[in-house]
């Protein structure tokens, strides 16, 4: 089953690749609409837009999903619900493609909601409490974006059609269109895990590793970036784009710092994904959507490869993800370590690998642009942090002795996984160069002084040295962190972001509800209605029974006395 779907998806990936080349050569765009319902001059249409951007992204998504499915053949081979898993991955690919090809906000919502739902189902695939919590966090964070898209749909009713692509230039200065752009930015921030919503991405690592490779590194999280690339005409030069720049740079910096504090292999990779997403968002919000798209694609390749290598290592190490147990992997798993190192180097932007072309161009455009000191330093520090956590990860995993049990069985002959990784290895070596030759009509002209040009190399070297040093830290140096306990806590808990979206939100409401239950529902309202009334009535009843339980003659005597009193009153009155 896995092999069949691998060939199926791979075929379509190649098909869209050739179509993409054809479209780029002839500068072709195909747009077609399928009208579903039309009432009161408003038509709900399913529209599809095929240009080189759509086809290229589709090619990458299909390629990664095909190798991920082939990889699952070995990784998930002993799983009972393999068929369900494959079906979920295919549904995910379907909704991703629906999102990619549609320039209509309603048909985007179809893909967008499908992504949220299917990614929820994939995160909770292992059906334990941890993955349930992570899935709920993921689903609810993404739900905010879904709601915003729904609101955009209702706002766009003003224009009579939901084909937003017609209004991007024309309605740019409209007030309502600016509301729409705010909502689109917010929706994209939820999907791409930018700063107020970024806690779900590390939590979603509870998913199976192939899912992380497909969903949480390359496709789903870049959906927000892709949406903003499609909307970039609308949001350019607005005030909100500056806020987006600030937030995305903070995301980049925060994720880079947090990755240095993390010991979970998948979470480190997730945080580096988050950092790269911040990079894409920030370069997008500085007005270079094509650079953002370039980095999106090349990043998709090497990050999926990185996750797949991590999956192999976790698989070999009896499902242990803690990098402190690893060490000497390069001796036992040479081929996997090769892939891992190449993808990590590509991530850092070592020259002539995939990441170099996109990242170097981004950094140089940043240095070339008109910006303030804050943005400048954040970019370069985050650039250094990438090298920092990558070298730290490599030192932990590759260099020292193996730190788990003394009995172990590491083998590098799982050819199904290796073959699927080879495809992505090839792509992560060449994709940067071939994309840069293919998708830019004319090269960017960059003119920088020598030191600014070498700035990337300076910060990378400095980050690498610091990563080396921090990986050699002994227990004495770790104890030094106790002195800055609060700062460490702040940095390693992602600036307390998870508390913002989980415990911080639910704690106060749950506590409020608990107090309400205790004081009102089981307290005063019970006292004043149910039990209290019952107690009072019982008291009255007991009091009444004192009268009832008397001697019979007292009743008769009291009646006669009553009659005599009335009689007396009668006589007085007459």
């Amino acid at each position: 089953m896995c092999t069949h779907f691998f060939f199926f998806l791979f075929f379509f990936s190649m098909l869209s690749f050739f179509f993409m080349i054809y479209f780029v050569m002839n500068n072709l765009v195909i747009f077609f609409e399928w009208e579903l319902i039309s009432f009161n001059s408003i038509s709900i249409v399913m529209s599809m837009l095929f240009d080189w951007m759509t086809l290229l992204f589709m090619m990458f998504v299909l390629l990664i999903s095909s190798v991920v499915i082939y990889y699952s053949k070995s990784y998930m081979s002993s799983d009972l619900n393999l068929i369900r898993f494959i079906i979920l991955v295919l549904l995910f690919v379907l909704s991703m493609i629906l999102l990619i090809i549609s320039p209509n906000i309603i048909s985007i919502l179809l893909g967008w909601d499908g992504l949220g739902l299917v990614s929820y189902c994939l995160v909770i695939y292992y059906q334990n409490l941890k993955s349930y919590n992570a899935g709920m966090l993921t689903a609810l964070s993404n739900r905010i974006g879904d709601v915003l898209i729904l609101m955009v749909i209702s706002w766009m009713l003003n224009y009579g059609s939901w084909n937003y692509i017609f209004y991007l230039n024309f309605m740019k200065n409209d007030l309502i269109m600016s509301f729409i752009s705010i909502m689109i930015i917010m929706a994209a921030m939820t999907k791409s895990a930018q700063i107020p919503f970024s806690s779900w991405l590390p939590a979603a690592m509870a998913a199976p590793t192939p899912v992380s490779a497909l969903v949480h590194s390359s496709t789903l999280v870049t959906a927000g970036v892709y949406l903003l690339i499609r909307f970039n005409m609308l949001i350019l030069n607005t005030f909100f784009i500056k806020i987006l720049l600030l937030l995305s740079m903070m995301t980049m910096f925060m994720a880079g710092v947090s990755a240095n504090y993390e010991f979970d292999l998948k979470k480190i990779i997730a945080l580096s994904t988050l950092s790269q997403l911040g990079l894409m968002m920030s370069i997008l919000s500085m007005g270079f959507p094509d650079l953002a798209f370039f980095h999106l694609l090349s990043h998709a390749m090497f990050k999926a490869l990185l996750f797949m290598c991590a999956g192999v290592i976790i698989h070999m190490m009896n499902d242990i993800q803690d990098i402190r147990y690893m060490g000497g992997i390069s001796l036992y798993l040479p081929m996997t370590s090769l892939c891992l190192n190449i993808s990590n180097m590509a991530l850092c932007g070592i020259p002539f690998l995939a990441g170099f072309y996109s990242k170097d161009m981004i950094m140089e455009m940043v240095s070339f642009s008109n910006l303030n000191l804050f943005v400048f330093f954040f970019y370069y520090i985050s650039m250094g942090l990438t090298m920092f956590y990558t070298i730290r990860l490599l030192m932990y995993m590759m260099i020292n002795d193996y730190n788990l049990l003394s009995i172990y069985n590491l083998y590098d002959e799982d050819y199904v996984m290796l073959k699927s990784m080879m495809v992505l290895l090839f792509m992560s070596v060449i994709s940067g160069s071939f994309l840069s030759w293919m998708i830019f009509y004319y090269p960017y002209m960059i003119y920088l002084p020598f030191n600014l040009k070498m700035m990337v190399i300076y910060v990378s070297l400095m980050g690498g040295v610091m990563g080396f040093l921090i990986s050699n830290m002994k227990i004495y140096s770790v104890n030094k962190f106790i002195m800055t306990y609060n700062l460490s806590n702040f940095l390693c808990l992602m600036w307390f972001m998870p508390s913002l979206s989980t415990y911080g939100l639910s704690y106060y409401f749950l506590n409020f509800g608990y107090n309400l239950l205790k004081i009102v529902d089981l307290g005063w309202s019970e006292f004043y209605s149910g039990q209290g009334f019952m107690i009072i009535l019982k008291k009255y009843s007991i009091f009444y029974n004192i009268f009832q339980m008397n001697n019979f003659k007292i009743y008769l005597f009291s009646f006669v006395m009553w009659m005599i009193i009335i009689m007396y009153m009668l006589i007085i009155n007459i």
Partner: protein
Amino acid sequence: MHFFMNSNKMFFLFILIFSTMISISSNSWFGCWIGLEINLLSFIPLISNSNNLLSSEASLKYFLTQSIASMNFLFSILIKMILMKNFEMIYFISIMINSSLLMKMGSAPFHFWFPNISEGLSWFNNFILMTWQKIASLILFSYYMNLNFSYFIIILNVMIGAIGGMNQTSLRKLMSFSSINNLGWMIFSIMISENLWIFYFFMYSFLISIMFFLFYMLNMFFINQLFINNMNFMIKMNLLINFLSLGGLPPFIGFLPKWIIINFLMMNKLYLLTFIMLMSSLITIYFYIRIIYSSFMFNYIKMKWFKIFLKNNFLMFINLFSFISITGMIFSTFLYIY
């Protein structure tokens, strides 16, 4: 029912019915008094059973209370005759006559004999005590009614009927307190019109006749007996629905007379009285629900040696009556289509 097989008892039942007729249809107070006395003397033989000590005690108590009440009634009507002309109304005389009649019917401030006596009576006698024995006194009460005193009596009736039944476990006492509560409603209905009173009285008698008959058949006198009986489902449902109907829960017919009385109360702007009557009948629903609690149970104790042979030809009547009790209010709305 052993009652109808006994010619003596049949004879006294006949006299009981006709003495009430004499009392409510005579045109002088003295004739009324004669009717009441005959009523008393014909009910005593119905109560007393030489084999049962409790019933003879009850008959003695009944005789004492009723004769003292009759004595005072006679005394008051004689004083009235001496002091004034026929159609004059004196406040304290009316209170005297009303008090003695209230003593006879077992209304609130003079009701203390009522639960005690009902405790010693069989279910059929209880039925007579709570329905037929009230007719004469209530009609005579309506002839010479002190309104201010009546409001006071109504409030006392509904409240004592509700609160007194709270702690009871004996079904007969519970039903007698429920009867005291309903007497408050009846006194108000007779203040409005006799037709309304007849309607309320008919509904009340109808509902309690079903329940008393069920209790008689199953030989039940205490609440805990309801839990150990293996009643079949239909009987449980009948019990449930009739009690809810008696409590005045809206879809059932017991709500209809209460609804009409509430309507008249609101029309007469007696809001506080409405509130008191409604709230106290809510408390009566509470203790009715305690009775029918066993019918809500999924599981109950079932003893193999415990057999009840129900006479199925009577069960048909009970089912019919319960059907009327469930659907009567819906059908009664068809009467008002014009």
